């Protein structure tokens, strides 16, 4: 039999495989900006855009964590109430320490927030992985638990931050560095670190593998339990970071803090190009997704077309249309 040895030298090209799921969200973002500008000139004003992007930082930061969880094949519905819970604990801690430690209570409170976030995330992760409970149900359960805890801690009311700390803490949300608001800087930093972890570190590979095919991952010596638990822990830390930025904004935690954030977060991740069934995560797409969501809400207020009753509906329509165009312009 003839053996054909087709030995053309193979060039390992530097291949940039940028697919639709990479640029899609950014094109959608661009389109939205243009539409916004055509509706209301103020839309593109620095203040308005600054406000909107700053605002989207919470969702963006949490959604970056959710990108880990979702790409590893999980889901976390508890992020909103976890954010409220962490905010509550942090404020209570800071208030108690304010008398003795003065302004130092703020960094200490931040550290506490991160630790609590980590623990909450780990708890979610262990229930899902070791307990082998469908993530939807497990995190729905913990969502109820966190929400109950913050309601209990606040007696259903508000937990305001101590007046003595308020001014020292304010810059974390309202301050700027080189003209850029802190929350934006923080979310960029979080996204940068996350994309470094997901794309440059071994863990990112494991995450994608676990999300894409559990069996294959297991046979490749990847621990599903470890990988997915870490993803939930990262999610917890991201929620904590968001909570830290959140505190100075309104200076209080209430039982309504973070209600329905989980839906926004998941929507941001999916708009950003990460598939809900798991697989590769798109960190920057997620950030774009979070900004898109906030922009849509902003557009609703700035435009005068829509009756107040119909705002939620129009948002729904826009999201569906955005996804449809992504799908069919491929």
């Amino acid at each position: 039999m003839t053996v054909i040895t087709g030995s053309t030298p193979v060039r390992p090209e530097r291949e940039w495989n940028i697919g639709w799921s990479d640029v899609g969200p950014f094109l959608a973002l661009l389109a939205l900006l243009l539409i916004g500008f055509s509706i209301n000139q103020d839309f593109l004003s620095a203040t308005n855009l600054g406000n909107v992007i700053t605002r989207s930082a919470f969702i963006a930061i949490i959604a970056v964590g959710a990108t880990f969880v979702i790409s590893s094949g999980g889901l976390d519905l508890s992020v909103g109430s976890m954010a409220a819970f962490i905010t509550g604990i942090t404020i209570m801690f800071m208030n108690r320490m304010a008398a003795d430690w003065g302004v130092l209570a703020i960094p200490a409170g931040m550290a506490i927030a991160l630790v609590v976030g980590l623990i909450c995330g780990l708890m979610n992760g262990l229930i899902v992985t070791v307990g082998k409970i469908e993530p939807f149900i497990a995190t729905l359960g913990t969502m109820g638990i966190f929400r109950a805890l913050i309601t209990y801690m606040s007696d259903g009311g508000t937990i305001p931050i101590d007046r003595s700390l308020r001014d020292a803490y304010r810059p974390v949300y309202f301050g700027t560095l080189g003209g850029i608001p802190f929350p934006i800087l923080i979310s960029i930093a979080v996204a940068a670190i996350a994309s470094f972890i997901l794309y440059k570190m071994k863990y990112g590979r494991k995450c994608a593998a676990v999300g894409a095919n559990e069996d294959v991952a297991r046979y490749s010596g990847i621990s599903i339990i470890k990988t997915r638990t870490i993803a939930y822990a990262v999610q917890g830390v991201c929620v904590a970071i968001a909570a830290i930025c959140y505190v100075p904004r309104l200076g209080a935690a209430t039982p309504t803090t973070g209600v329905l954030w989980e839906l926004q977060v998941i929507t941001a991740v999916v708009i950003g190009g990460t598939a809900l069934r798991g697989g590769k995560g798109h960190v920057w797409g997620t950030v774009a997704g979070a900004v898109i969501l906030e922009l849509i809400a902003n557009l609703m207020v700035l435009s005068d077309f829509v009756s107040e009753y119909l705002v939620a509906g129009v948002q729904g329509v826009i999201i569906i249309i955005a996804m449809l165009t992504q799908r069919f312009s491929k």
Partner: protein
Amino acid sequence: MSIERERRSAVSETDGFVSHPVLRAEGISKQYGPVTVLSDVTLDILPGEIHAIIGENGAGKSTFMRLLSGYAEPTAGALSMGGRKVGFSKPEQAQESGIVLVHQEILLADALTVAENLFLGRELMRHGLVDDRTMRRLAVEKLHDLGCHVSPNALVRDISLADRQLVQIARALLDDYKLVIFDEPTAVLTGEEVERLLAIILQLKGQGAAVLYISHRLDEVQRLADKVTVLRDGKMVGTYPGHSLTQMDMARLMVGRDLAALYPEKTVKPALQAMLEVRDFGVPGFASDISFTAHKGEVLGFAGMIGAGRTEVFEGIMGLRPATGTVKLQGRAIDLRRPRAAMDAGIGYLTEDRKGKGLLLQERLAPNLTLSALGKFHPGLLMRRRREQSALVEAVDTYDIRLKSYVVKAGQLSGGNQQKLLLAKVLLTNPSVVVIDEPTRGIDIANKAQIYAFIERLVAEGRTCIVISSEMQELIGICDRILVMREGRITGEVTGDRMTEHEIALLATSETKVAAKQGGRQ
């Protein structure tokens, strides 16, 4: 040729005294619940030796290999390496001890790229970071050695089955293992890739590694094996020196009786009457300018190398991919845009990817059997459970599906038996044209004969059978006519005396092709 020389030297080496087996399996048994799949198998695997395991479908070969490589644990018996007892509860442990398995079924993550899959779980690192550039480069090199030219950045989901198989093989060749186990590596490969693989296996052996090799292609076994171990119904029949066995001997040992001729006598066909007419057909990105006619009572073969586009042509005809052109069945045009049109008109298609597209692995056998025939088999809205059960019994009988119990899931059948179930599933729709993509993928030799006889019976009933196969011998043995494809086009037709491997290979390949192919793919 170099292959011959290497083989001879290998045999002389193993004829002498060898100190330690790489792996010794003693009294290995495996039970799944009440079902005994393997009982008391004992085997020594020596370094620098190619040891073939053969046996009928369901004999327990794959199970045995899984036990050796940590994918499952034996219920009795012991493994030892270098005189020390070992036990693997995870594949990684086996891999750390130097044992790796190339699965019979594809086990890759669809959503990841070729390079990512290749290095999954053992990524190359540089300065603590994953070194994608190097991994891509190595992926290209390793795959190229195997004759696979997919881009390292392609998603596994998008590459053909054969390419996936090669990626899977490449994974096992990345590191130096003491024992490499191949479970039917060639079932979906064509001549060229098979040759490359065999050469690589000999190279492994030359480097002193031991190789366990499972195949139902007995010619390969004969060419490669220093020793042959035969399993039958989960028990050892014996271990024999490879060169002393003819293919006929092997078949007899496997089956336990003499086999009649593999290929049925070709009958003289009556006047040709067009059944399936395909004109100016194309599947964007895969094939174009396809025109051919298949006749009533004819076995029409499709030959070609991996990536020739044969699978895609028929998936296009079945409405499973966007396609252009006209397809007529018995003079009536088929609407290519409607997915069920071809199936309703009476064309049945048996996919080559039984695990991904053929069977619901988590389902019982009966629902799998009737899945494509829901309309025909269960007229009206309700299902006929009892009829379904008896159809299953009948199919098990007709296709000789070996099962230990009816209460198993399709995924628990052995590879070959899954293939038979799939064949039964497609034929339950009672098609007048049957397209079989890789009909004997993973089928043992006795059953091959049965399937060939079956194909013969189908055409005798006046149906048309189209066979896509990577095994040229098989095509030559059963087809009345063979069309050869290359790079998405039909390059020729061979019939009668011109039906030889040489002729087909000429049409399927060309010197200009290889370069063009690489350019086109990357």
